């Protein structure tokens, strides 16, 4: 396997503009097989635009994105088939039942869903008893579990998770972390965006911090903390004398509240 194929996602010189506003200015990073990669940044830093470009929801102004070896611009369907996506917002037809949604997306991704397999999939997210329940009737946590199931139903090489634990209770959050770790153990890559530094520290193998449309730091959580431990901007925002990932994040991106 050559170096190209160790990366399930490669982003090179990515630029995304909205009119005259440059949301993403020359971003480059890669996600390896069997890795959970965190993309962190304050509001408006360029995370969502970067993710949207990878998902194919916005057309980049420059740069190249490759998913599992497929260029998103020239082989969009193949690239999208190789990735699973969990979007931030609720995103399935509220009138359809869980099993109907699973069948729909199974069909779209070319996965045959037998009755037994359906049962197995729903048991995996502890929703077997609610198979006939409409999506609109589920709780936020249940909807997130369905959404993650759909994102991984075709066992994609790359899974994109956009702030997946927002609004979840601690039990649901832990359950989601375990699912992410299972994906990693299967040798697939995860690109995670989150505002929770605790989450990033707990599950991410590597982290990129993005601000004002550019990546300002990229490394393992431990290495980032170690590297910036004595940085005056980081030390000045630390609490209780211990440097955390959150201190590094605020030290690098500033304390000002973003819109």
């Amino acid at each position: 396997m050559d170096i190209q194929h160790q990366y399930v996602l490669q982003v090179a010189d990515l630029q995304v503009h909205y009119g005259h506003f440059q949301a993403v200015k020359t971003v480059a990073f890669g996600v390896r097989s069997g890795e959970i990669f965190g993309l962190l940044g304050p509001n408006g830093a360029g995370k969502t635009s970067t993710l949207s470009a990878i998902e194919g929801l916005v057309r980049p102004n420059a740069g190249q994105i490759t998913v599992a070896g497929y260029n998103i611009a020239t082989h969009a369907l193949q690239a999208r088939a190789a990735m699973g996506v969990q979007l931030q917002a609720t995103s399935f037809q509220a009138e359809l039942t869980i099993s109907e949604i699973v069948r729909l997306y199974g069909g779209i991704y070319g996965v045959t869903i037998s009755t037994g397999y359906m049962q197995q999939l729903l048991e995996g997210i502890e929703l077997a008893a609610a198979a006939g329940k409409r999506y609109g009737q589920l709780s936020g946590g249940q909807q997130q579990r369905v959404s993650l199931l759909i994102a991984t139903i075709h066992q994609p090489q790359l899974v994109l998770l956009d702030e997946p634990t927002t609004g979840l209770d601690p039990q649901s959050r832990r359950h989601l972390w375990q699912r992410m770790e299972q994906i990693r153990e299967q040798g697939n890559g995860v690109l995670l965006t989150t505002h929770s530094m605790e989450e990033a520290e707990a599950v991410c193998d590597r982290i990129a911090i993005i601000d004002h449309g550019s990546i300002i730091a990229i490394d393992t959580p431990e290495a980032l903390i170690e590297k910036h431990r004595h940085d005056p901007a980081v030390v000045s925002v630390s609490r209780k004398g211990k440097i955390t990932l959150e201190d590094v994040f605020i030290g690098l991106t500033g304390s000002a509240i973003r819109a």
Partner: protein
Amino acid sequence: MQKNIPKTATVLAFLLQADFTTQWRNRRSFILVLLVPVIILFTWKSAIDKIGAAFAFSTAISIGLVAIGLMGYPNSIARDREKGVFQRLRVAPVPRWSIMGSRLVVQLAMILLVTLCVYAGGYYFDHITISPAGYVITIFTALLGGAVYLSIGQLIVGLIKNPETVNSTARLIYFLFIMVGILGDLGVLGVQIKQLINWSPYGVVKAILAGGMDHAKWNKDTTMALAATLGYTMVFATIGIRKFKWSAK
């Protein structure tokens, strides 16, 4: 590892199944859409001899088409866009035209159903019958006429993002079409308004429906109305598709 991408026909079949299921679960609103033309046929029972079967049928079908195109289609598109249903489908290996294509097929099926129900209502309440060829041609003209209203619905969701604004705009246009259309067509609002209504989307659709039912009376004006129907559809659909945004944000 190479991923299996299903054939477009397979994807479309799954989308259609989901969209028809959604339509079935929302059947109450469709029954309301259906009730208006059937009530018109019922209440006009005693006037059929005066106004003619073709007028009654074409008016009832037109009203059903207006309701589907202006009330059903844009509201469902605006609501699903707001929820992010389209964005979720767009990140899957699905050709984008198939997402909307499936929605439109469901609406065309609804148009067919409305037309058949109006036939049944006309026969049951008013004992109206037309020639077998008239029934067949009217189905085609109803599909063409439905396309005009669907394209107006597309124009509305293309120009307006907010689902509440889409809903209120669609209601307003629906009201204008129905009230001004029927009253103007009957000549109550004067000759000039009647002329205007005749060449509006409401008037041209009604003309091709009436022409289809009694094809012996199909004349130059009906052909012009057919051309105007196609023209309106192309213009509204082109603007609506070009301006359409998949996300409400």
